[in-house]
């Protein structure tokens, strides 16, 4: 039988999302111990109305933590309905889950101590590189740069901690996440994000495979956001000049997003 998340939501009135606790500004717990972020806003303001329209009732959003190694099992075990964090849309993952429209676009880079000899992916041979277990970056390093000593950590803070202490020489993750980490760290000046994107990381929201109705609702919500401009308002709130992490959207990215939204 095909999964039917909309029927379930209709019954329970709850949409459970799996998201991150330590990936600013996408999803993290802020100083007031509230669980906030760009990805969460997208769900609250764009996806939720669309799903409500689909199921014909008001619904509530519940959040659970999901990390790269746990998010797919959580989804397939019905513990969550939608992964809305920092998950990269890859062909391989598409074999087991469905992705929504891309809602963010970035690429893998390195976070290093200021002045580190590592300037990009070509300098990592023999170096100790931290990554997150189960992430696309870990997989690429493992497969394409086997000379690097890869250390995989279950979550972002552990990896960053290892970097701070010098246990590793660099921490690789999606550039925007590294920038977020640096900006939120106690001494942002000590760190820099280096290197060209050595991978493409389009973020999508993941859901159970083959759930056509639900996917349509999620996509409709996001597409609406792009069309109405609401998406760009939210983007501005987090990444605009006065946002949590100023990160102006490049025209290429904007074009990419709009192109993939089907416009």
């Amino acid at each position, binding site marked *: 039988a095909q999964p039917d998340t909309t029927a379930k939501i209709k019954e329970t009135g709850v949409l459970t999302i799996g998201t991150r606790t330590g990936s600013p500004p996408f999803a993290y717990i802020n100083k007031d111990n509230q669980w906030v972020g760009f990805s969460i806003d997208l769900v609250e303001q764009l996806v939720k109305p669309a799903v409500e329209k689909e199921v014909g009732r008001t619904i509530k959003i519940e959040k659970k933590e999901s990390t790269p190694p746990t998010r797919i099992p959580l989804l397939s075990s019905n513990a969550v309905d939608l992964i809305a964090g920092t998950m990269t849309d890859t062909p391989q993952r598409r074999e087991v889950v469905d992705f929504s429209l891309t809602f963010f676009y970035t690429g893998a880079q390195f976070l290093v101590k200021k002045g580190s000899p590592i300037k990009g992916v070509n300098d990592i041979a023999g170096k100790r590189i931290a990554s997150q277990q189960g992430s696309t970056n870990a997989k690429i390093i493992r497969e394409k740069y086997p000379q690097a000593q890869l250390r995989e950590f279950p979550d972002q803070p552990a990896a960053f901690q*290892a970097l701070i202490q010098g246990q590793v020489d660099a921490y690789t993750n999606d550039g925007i996440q590294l920038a977020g980490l640096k900006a939120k760290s106690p001494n942002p000046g000590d760190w820099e994000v280096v290197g060209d994107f050595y991978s493409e990381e389009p973020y999508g929201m993941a859901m159970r495979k083959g759930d056509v109705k639900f996917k349509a609702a999620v996509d409709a919500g996001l597409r609406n956001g792009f069309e109405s401009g609401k998406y760009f308002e939210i983007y501005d709130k987090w990444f605009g000049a006065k946002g949590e992490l100023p990160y102006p959207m490049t025209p290429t990215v904007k074009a990419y997003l709009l192109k993939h939204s089907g416009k």
Partner: protein
Amino acid sequence: MSYQFKWSVLWSGQSGGWLLQGVATTLAISGLAWILAVGLGILAGAARTVPWRPLRLAGTFYVEFFRNVPLLVWMFFWYFGVPPLLPRGVQDWLFNHSAEFWAGMFALGVYHGARMSEVIRSGINSIPRTQFEASVAMGLTTFQAYRLIIVPIALRLIVPPATNESLNLLKNSSVALTISVAELTFQTRQVETYTAKAIEALTAGTLIYLVLCVSIAWIMARVERRFAIPGLIARGG
């Protein structure tokens, strides 16, 4: 959505290799930690039974402090907390030589050493005081009495509880995944994330642990029977 089993994921691709590496790492970290734990356990366990207060206090402090804080916290402590205190050169060397492995090994060994010492202490305490008296009454020194009489008897008495504790150590080595040690549970989850086949991966990991534990328990049961003191431990198969 009904679950589609696909057991072949366990041996196709890299999964099998990962699991084997996981077993090797689990055995290595547990084995080394076990040696450390037994050494510390004997020292601290014996220290807490000698008639000299400072030594007893030191033993007690070690045991209480280490066994009363979760292993997970100790993992973070040895991995993140300790290296900065070491000289720069040692740090560099460690970071280049699997610091996470050594930190995990230390955390496991020191934590379980505290628990092991409790096992050893109760073993020693269960030997009647008169055995010690009989030993020194023949002219043995206190040290000889411990080395030749008390400890050999205690070691035999504690084989069953020590086996339990050793199995706990083996299983607790899984906590080292939090500091990036690629042991068996880590590799199980690796298989799971790469294949998205949670049940298969977890089943494989669980079975491997069971086989490891059951074989160790079996070996220790043989050891126990081999070294049993006639008449003292009446335990069958």
